[in-house]
């Protein structure tokens, strides 16, 4: 019992928090903006690597057994901020070429290629982040300063991660309800209509990509300071798919649904096998997990495409306002602060092919564009 509360429960709760942050980040990008980010995990990885490097110190002396860039010993919480910045910067870099107006299935393919290639490069080049061995020995922040034992420090980290989760939840909910969030959904459901009222889809996509990337980077930083090691084994392309499955099960476009999805898929589902008696060669259980994740996604899409908690129908309106003005001039922070004084979004509250576009059904947005014929 003692060891349960000392290590197992804190680890589980921290993982839950990290996965929840990932799910919100991906939900913002995919659920609200329709951006298919198949390279999500590399932004988390970027955050983790940068947080590790800037808290490990230079790669000489004690750390000379590993080589990495950005070696520094920054006081906490600067490594976490650096992690979020790294995720945002990498997102901006990749978003600049991947988010242009190319076919959406090409976009998904390009993102997947980015994820696969990034893994190959970081594994092969030992000068970046110690190649396939990865970084180890990342210090637990504040542990020596506060003179804590490892088990009590883990509970400190649990509180911190949960607090950050609350902050991020409030942030993404406000973002999604702001005029900027409505602009995202407008773009997701009717890109051409959104463009015709002065929204710039490319810029909107880039904004949501960078914000999601920052959350992803932050989650990576929180994770690496908890488990104190990070290597290419932790961020294969399939990891992104776990979060996508949580998204689909929980309900795409519903931030509370993400809590359900995260509990069901990464936590319950990936934890259950540890109670099974071990069988086969080591790694066989992992293989089955991945196979079932793949099946789960397909079954979810067939049986309950809108998830456990479907996207809520959310119609913003203000008495007497006749003209559609989805915030275009206020800039990002102006839009962030203007929550509540919402402009109407009636333009998008109409049907597309017999289906209301605000609460979009299984086929999330993406009404047929001329170049996108249907699957044969």
């Amino acid at each position: 019992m003692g060891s349960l509360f000392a290590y197992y429960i804190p680890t589980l709760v921290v993982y839950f928090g990290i996965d929840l942050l990932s799910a919100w980040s991906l939900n913002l990008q995919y659920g609200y903006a329709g951006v298919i980010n198949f390279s999500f995990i590399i932004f988390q990885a970027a955050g983790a690597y940068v947080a590790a490097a800037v808290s490990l110190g230079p790669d000489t002396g004690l750390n000379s057994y590993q080589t990495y860039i950005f070696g520094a010993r920054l006081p906490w919480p600067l490594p976490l901020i650096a992690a979020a910045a790294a995720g945002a910067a990498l997102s901006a870099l990749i978003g600049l070429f991947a988010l242009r107006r190319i076919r959406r299935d090409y976009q998904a393919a390009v993102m997947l290629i980015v994820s696969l290639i990034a893994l190959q490069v970081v594994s092969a080049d030992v000068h970046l982040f110690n190649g396939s061995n990865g970084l180890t020995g990342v210090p637990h922040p504040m542990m020596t300063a506060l003179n804590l034992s490892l088990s009590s420090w883990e509970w400190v980290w649990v509180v911190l991660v949960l607090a950050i989760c609350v902050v991020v939840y409030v942030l993404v909910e406000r973002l999604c309800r702001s005029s900027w969030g409505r602009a995202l959904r407008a773009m997701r459901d009717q890109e051409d209509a959104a463009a015709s009222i002065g929204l710039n889809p490319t810029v909107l996509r880039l904004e949501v990509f960078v914000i999601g990337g920052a959350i992803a980077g932050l989650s990576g930083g929180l994770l690496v300071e908890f488990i104190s090691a990070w290597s290419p084994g932790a961020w294969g392309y399939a990891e992104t798919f776990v979060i996508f499955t949580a998204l689909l099960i929980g309900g795409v476009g519903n931030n509370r649904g993400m809590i359900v999805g995260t509990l069901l898929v990464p936590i319950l589902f990936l934890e259950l096998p540890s109670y099974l008696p071990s069988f086969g060669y080591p790694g066989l259980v992992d293989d089955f997990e991945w196979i079932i994740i793949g099946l789960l996604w397909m079954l979810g899409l067939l049986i309950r495409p809108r998830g456990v908690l479907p996207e809520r129908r959310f119609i913003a309106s203000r008495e007497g306002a006749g003209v559609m003005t989805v915030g275009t001039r206020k800039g990002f922070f102006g839009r962030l602060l203007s929550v509540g004084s919402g402009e109407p979004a009636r333009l998008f509250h109409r049907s597309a092919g017999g289906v209301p576009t605000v609460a979009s059904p299984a086929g999330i947005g993406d009404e047929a564009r001329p170049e996108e014929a249907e699957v044969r």
Partner: protein
Amino acid sequence: MNVFLQSIGFGVITASIIAIGAMGFSLQFGLTNVLNLSFGSIMTLAGFVAYLCETAGINIWLGLVLGGLSGAVATILIGKSVFKIFARRGAKLFEMVMVTLSLALIIEYSIDAVSQDQIYQLTFPQGSSFTFGPITVTASQLAIIGIGIAIFAALEAMLKLTRLGKALRAMAVDPSLARSCGIPTDRIVNATWLVSGFLCGVAGVVFVINSLSVDSYTGTLFLPSVLAAAILGGVGSPGGALVASLVLGIVTELTAALGGSAYSTVAAFGVLVVVLLSKPSGVARKVELTV
């Protein structure tokens, strides 16, 4: 200068492997509109079939055919079951991409479970070496180049000269018009799954013949090159896929030779990015199929 020529030589070999896969992918995508990300895992499957053939003492070139057939069977099974179910449900294109990716996971990790996460080495003889100036290639590498050219020629002839090819081209342009003209579109789609699956399998085996090792991630790691070549060459265009593969193969090997072996795929990917930025729907989309 010698390094330059040598890497062009290696580039042509790499290009032949990429091209076989990219031609299959391109044909499949052009006809069915499914961006099939499980292509790489089926390549792995065929690679393992070749490995099993080798351990069973079967000639590797017969293994090549068997690997191709296994790819064809796997592809048509997936196409007729999974893809058809989701297409009937009206899955959007990118939901379909997700479905193919979940299939990739299922196949890849099923192979991983059976192969126990090990790397398997092949040991068949590479044949005698040939020297052309600074370039030295083995007999099996020459054979790979030959297979690439033969497949390109066969595919072109099939598309241009046969009734099947004509029907394929008609369907790529307008499936409903093709159907109303009496073309049995279901059978054409079946033929597409079979042919593209065969090419996918052959690409997997050829990759294994060149690298002499196979594990459960082999095809997935090779998928970026195949995808890049298919998109770069224009969907549904074997000639475009061939040219794009040559460019990508030579760029990859040149970068590796100039010291950045970790970055060789990045360089190839850079070519794709530059092209996609200037031509968002790929180069020469459906050129060959619409002729």
